[in-house]
């Protein structure tokens, strides 16, 4: 019943991706990291994830655009926005586009993990819900 959480980290800051991956892998998560929105979308074409940590400000495709595209590819994927830029507009826009949380950098690793677990829990329930709606006998 409990499978490892599949986490995708999307951030152009390579060092942050590396540190977070290392520390969250150590906590039992399955983690992959990419450095752009485009790479994230390419990966999500063929591979399911549970939770994504998504940087808001990235060169090329920005976080909000990436979020919009992610929701088309994997609607149930829980996206936690992670931003160094404390902008209310971006936060509200992220929420409107279906992000599950808007965290500010630098966030405490335990807080991030708690939010990831919360989001994962939510995803499990949504999956169950879908199974109940569409599955033959639930």
């Amino acid at each position, binding site marked *: 019943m409990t499978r490892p959480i599949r986490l995708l980290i999307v951030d152009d800051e390579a060092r942050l991706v590396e540190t977070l991956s290392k520390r969250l892998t150590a906590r039992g998560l399955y983690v992959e990291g990419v450095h752009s929105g485009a790479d994230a979308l390419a990966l999500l074409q063929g591979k399911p994830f549970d939770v994504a940590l998504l940087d808001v400000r990235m060169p090329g495709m920005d976080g909000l655009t990436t979020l919009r595209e992610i929701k088309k590819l994997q609607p149930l994927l829980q996206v936690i926005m992670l931003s160094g830029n404390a902008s209310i507009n971006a*936060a509200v826009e992220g929420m409107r586009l279906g992000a599950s949380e808007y965290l500010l950098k630098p966030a405490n690793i335990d807080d991030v993990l708690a939010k990831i677990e919360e989001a994962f829990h939510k995803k499990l329930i949504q999956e169950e819900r879908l199974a109940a709606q569409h599955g033959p006998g639930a």
Partner: protein
Amino acid sequence: MKARRFFRRLFGRERWKPLEARPDARAALHLQYLTFKDLITSNDEILEVIADMESKLQGGMTFGMAFVRSRAVTAASHAYRMIQNLNTLSRRRYQDLYPRFSDIQQAVERVLARGQARPQGPLVLPLASVSLHDLDAVGGKSANLGEMKNRAGLPVPEGFAVTTDACIEFFEANQLWDDIRALLMNLGTGDLQAAAETSESIRRAIMAAPLPSRLEAAILDGYERLCASAGGTRRVALRSSAVGEDGEISFAGQYVSLLNVARDQILGAYKEVIAGLYTPRAICYRAIKGIPEEDIPMGVACLAMVDAVASGVASSMDPNRPAAPRMVINGAWGLGIGTVEGSVSPDTWTVAKDGTKAVITSTAGLKETRVEPLGAGGVQTVPVSAHLQPALCLTEPQVRELAGLVQAAEDHFGGPREVEWALDRTGRLVLLQSRPVHASARGTEQGETPREVEGHPLILSGVPASGGSGSGPAFLSYGPEDLQGFPEGGVLVARHSHPQYVRVMDRASAIVTDIGAPTGHMASLAREFGIPAVLDTHRSTSLLRPGAVVTVDGGRGAVYEGRAESLLSAASSSGARGMAGTPVYAILQEVSKHIVTLNLTDPKSSEFTARSCRTFHDIARFVHEKTFEEMFRVSDQASYEELRSVPLAARLPFTVYLIDLGGGLPPGARAREVTPQDILSSPMKALLAGMTHPELRWWMPKAMSIGGFASVTTEAIFTPFMEYGERRLGDRSYAIVAEGYCNFSSRIGYHFAAVDAYCTASPSRNYISFRFKGGAASEARRANRCVLLERILRSMDFQVERLGDLLNARIRKFSEEATLERLDQAGRLIVATRQLDMRMGPAADIDWYVSAFLTGNYLFDPCFAAASPQGGS
């Protein structure tokens, strides 16, 4: 057939079927459960922001713009999410909250944006065209220099100003603001180690970022023009010129000055000066003084280097005796760093502040070292030859000429001025800096000589540099790096005065140095922070023992043994060092009007509407109330027992209504009410077991025996609470239950208690979150209650955070058994502390109450241990 309508609304096309046969009905419950959980989480987050802001508004704690900004964003995003979720839950019945949210959001953004964003101007301006009007464009130092040069006709070297827009362009081209903001967010105040590390990270980021090429070109062009008008290749000095610097809030010596810079070093030096915005001392200074990081784009003043024979600082007013008609001039050999940073004992002159400019006193210092330029660029400190060490560095005519310049500066600016001066090899005096002088913050009426204080021998005397008196244990420091462990209220005893000592000025009660001048940067900072300071005592670090308590009389330049109350009484250290009155505090205050203020207090009032929401707190309060209302409305419309809200039949001091989101109540429960025994949700069951623990006996007058309970009617059960007027019959406490889940909350007026818990056989997802907020009781009582709850919860292994009157306790990943046991305890605590609210006065003995609870004395009966040691079962 309401139910059918309800489900049709939920699912449109579906035909009615019994619940068990309808997987999508179960899915609907899941959706409700998720939505509900998000609503609860967001409500918690907003309450946390509110408590955080409230406690910062109390003063005492330091914080920056990064704090205000990030808390505002958190509140906004969760307020928005609450609106979204309430609309999901209610099938879009609360759309009118969105425009209210936008209004509040805009109001908050207007406050946060204060002082930001100006149209882009030139990157470099020649000093010859700068005046005070350009303060925002070029920063304080350049504006003051330009004003002196061009409008007061005072001698100022050739130079140019790199504008604040240039700095903004540099930062924006490299997106440095975001990085810096993120780095600063991590920083608590008072943590010097962390400040030093943060400072280093920011400095690295700035030094690694390339200058935009058009800025490089502009700076080098400015340099060529400087050389042209100065008549040949020149070394330059680059000095910080921040907005706010040398203005109302003095940034004396807080930033970097780089002397004797060659052409090929200018661009790097420019970045170095910019990075000086984020030295540990500058970060601490801004945190203490409450200056928003975003408000301080840095300008840089670039001046032709003066090859100074002597230099120093002069003030048109004696900072310690502002009423006296005289000026004070300090000077030393070589470039200006020495006097200003207090590493030599300078010469001191006092000059009559009248037409005569007569020299009243002249005192030669022992100037052992001087700073001189190096051929390759930069400067070095060298020894002064023996015969020059005690020699005055200015002649009397030079002193009087300088006094004339200082007077002219004061006349032009219309207030007491402090200037930095230099004497070049041709004997020409020039001014390098000008700022308003800060009179001693305390007592301006001091006499000349130290007083006799009975019982407290005079240990030391020195130069009075900042008035007032302070007392505390001596902390000896041999350099500004040597400050680890500086105690709250300590007296800083330092070898040299140095502006970096600003780091402890939020904690120090006084400052004493062996060497230093009252015109130096540190002294002016001490005056600004209102910290008594006695400088140039020569012997403080050798005479004073670490930890020994001394009393410092800054006005008379005296240090006494022990704590001399008679000196302290009048000028006890005030709260003036708090954040109140600072720009960041003002912004927090303003922003909190749109976030923290609660206008919607009474759900029964006709004003309790979406339209009346004027703050994020209002939105949270409104949505929270409507969440429960909606869930009950939806369930009341359904005719399935499974979806109904059911009253709970239990001995409780409040009526509880339950809603089952699946698996929390027996499927066939047709009864109009359920008993605790019926409940399937194990966490709810455990919580209720605690709340109805027989020993709680909240319903009985103290004298009544347990046996008497059977005859007590339901009406009587509520009587004690009716008497206290705390609640009325008919108010509901709510519990949302599901298999393995419960959320119980009760809110009476301002008083809010909630338990949210998940508990199954697999520990990984188990948690209990226990929250408690406020109450309209006096602050002392509220604080007592929170401390009590905190201590009891900690003893049950909860992790507890307390922010003002908000208590947030949680455990995670405990075994099923351990989780249920703590829920039982939490239930007892909720009921027992309601009792306590009325009993525990502001001066209660908290230890006693903690142990009373832990020994099962839930009535907090003083005779409990003797009278009923047997417990309750």
